[in-house]
């Protein structure tokens, strides 16, 4: 048997076989292997809890696949609150006829991503829907993380005078996905930046307790994320176009397609807002990590123009950078 049948989701023998042959095979750990209706564990302290669903099309793309994305996305959402991710759940919605080989490939990739992020998959679910009622494979992941004492990282915490740091080049994930859509015939090798940021964040908060805001600029891109922060914190933000890191292939692809990298999704980048006097310390730590090598300051938080993000253009003029409107590219994550 090489494809998923409706009976794989019936809860009967085939379901059990699928769980045993694929999910337990790759995700095995003491909590999961109890096979109870819920994962049971003890923990202490302040917890962060998040959920996200992944419907990316195509499910395999340069730099990753839906499985890696699903783990990293949830790990990063926890990390952006300063939490150390510990456990995640995976829910699979599979389209009838999906290849078991590809499902196994995704499971293997989930295993690798969870090993890199050092999180355990402790519970899960599998459903199969009729052909045409889903597109190959959708994954939901939820995650739990522990927030260390003294850490207070929130979207409404940005203060005038703070510096705005970005951890690396922007737009890579969205353009990687776009370049894979079959109706585009785009011959670039731009890779998705999907990556777990938790280790870097751990290092960052160990070095600088005063980090005010952390956010991962996923859907809507950097521009939308900065707008969310400006609105939540009732501050202005000004960034410099010439400081924003964009790789040449992403910039060229954006020019060709009339897209703005500031609005393109990232899956392995973060924005940090920190007091000016902590910038050097923080950048030094970030640059020690693979996913923060190109970290740099791109702007500052201002008292003026509250709730508005201004972009200083290369020519030295200013323009308002609004949130993303419309949807340049559906199903990127």
């Amino acid at each position, binding site marked *: 048997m090489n494809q998923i049948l409706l009976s794989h989701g019936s809860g009967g023998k085939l379901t059990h076989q699928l769980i045993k042959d694929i999910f337990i095979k790759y995700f095995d750990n003491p909590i999961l292997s109890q096979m109870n209706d819920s994962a049971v564990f003890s923990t202490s302290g302040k917890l962060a809890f998040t959920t996200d669903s992944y419907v990316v099309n195509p499910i395999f793309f340069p730099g990753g696949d839906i499985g890696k994305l699903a783990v990293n996305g949830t790990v990063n959402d926890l990390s952006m609150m300063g939490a150390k991710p510990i456990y995640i759940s995976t829910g699979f919605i599979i389209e009838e006829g999906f290849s078991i080989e590809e499902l196994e490939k995704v499971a293997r990739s989930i295993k690798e991503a969870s090993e890199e992020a050092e999180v355990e998959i402790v519970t899960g679910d599998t459903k199969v829907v009729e052909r045409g009622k889903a597109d190959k494979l959708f994954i939901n992941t939820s995650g739990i993380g522990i927030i260390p004492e003294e850490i207070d990282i929130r979207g409404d915490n940005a203060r005038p005078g703070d510096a705005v740091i970005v951890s690396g080049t922007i737009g890579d994930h969205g353009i990687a996905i776009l370049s894979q859509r079959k109706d585009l015939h785009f011959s670039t090798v731009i890779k998705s930046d999907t990556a777990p940021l938790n280790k870097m964040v751990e290092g960052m908060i160990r070095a600088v307790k005063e980090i005010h805001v952390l956010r991962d600029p996923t859907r809507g891109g950097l521009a939308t994320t900065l707008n969310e922060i400006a609105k939540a914190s009732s501050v202005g933000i000004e960034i410099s176009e*010439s400081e924003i890191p964009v790789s040449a292939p992403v910039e060229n692809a954006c020019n060709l397609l009339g897209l703005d990298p500031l609005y393109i999704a990232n899956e392995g980048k973060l924005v940090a807002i920190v007091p000016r006097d902590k910038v050097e310390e923080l950048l030094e730590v970030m640059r020690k990590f693979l996913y923060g090598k190109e970290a740099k300051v791109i702007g500052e938080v201002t008292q003026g123009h509250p709730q508005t993000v201004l972009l200083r253009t290369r*020519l030295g003029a200013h323009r308002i950078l609004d949130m993303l409107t419309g949807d340049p590219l559906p199903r990127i994550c």
Partner: protein
Amino acid sequence: MERLNYNSPEIAKKILDEIHLYSHKDTAIMEFCGTHTHSRFKFGIKELLPKNINMISGPGCPVCVTDNKDIDYCIALSSLPDVIIATFGDMVRVPGSYKSLQEAKADGSDIKIVYSSIDALNIAKENPYKKVIFLGVGFETTAPTVAASIIEAEKNGINNYFVYSMHKLTPPAMKAILDLGEVNLNGILGPGHVSTVIGWKSWEFVPLEYKIPVVVAGFDAVDILLGVFILVKMYEDNKLEVANTYIRAVKPFGNSYALNLIDEVFEKEDTSWRGLGELPQSGLKIKDKYKRFDAKVRFPLDVPSTPKPKGCRCDEVIRGVIAPLECPLFKTVCSPAQPIGPCMVSSEGTCSAYYLYGGGR
């Protein structure tokens, strides 16, 4: 040879200094192209020009000038059985009289976004049992590629590919705006991409008949500023000419290969423009020779005329008579997320540029 950086802040700064030095009179310049409007806002050029220079956006947005009736026709086509609509993304969100293509898609119509007519042709090849209709919107720049797709379909015997042609020609629109005389202009920034196809000599009637200088310009910061500088200089020195600063792309007589493609497949017809009304010989219809690919012939539908949305002033924005800020709907009920008129939807639309780049702060 090192490639010139057309967005170089240093070169831009030098040109800006020259503009400030030369420009004394109040100067109204219309940029014909929506892409010029968007670039100008993106680079923040408005803030850097002297206050006596007023940049006015023109009608150069193909989706914006598409008549409401055509939008309704496209939506009606999408509800026909076994039809796939292939379209540029901009068209999907344009509100028709009753709904948009986006809403038609949610209702079950099969609508695919493509980046070229050749992609649409490929969809037809992959779906031999469906009828694939490409929504042909665009100026002289888009028409040759659409013509090529029809020739290709003919050559390969693809019988399920159709084009709904709404292609329009830019010189008649320029003429219409100048004939209306609603806006007093001292210079026109001519369309760069269109001129690569039709040649800069196509604009010689403007200085000759209307006594207004034209500069055909590219779309980077240096291109736009250089265009403005030469227009300012011509106006200050009372010179009436067409200048071409987009020499890396535009030739005097254009691209004969592209022009021949248009000529092979299309012929001129009178057509209706949003904002400008019916303009003689300003549209492109598919010639009889290729009529089996013409969606208007293959799928004749009776689409009633409907009044424009209440309060929407896209018409006047298209003609450069008002700026978006003067429309009561701008940013109050009309936004890119919920557009009332096409100028707010298209990536070349004036209202969308004002909205996205904070021109309407």
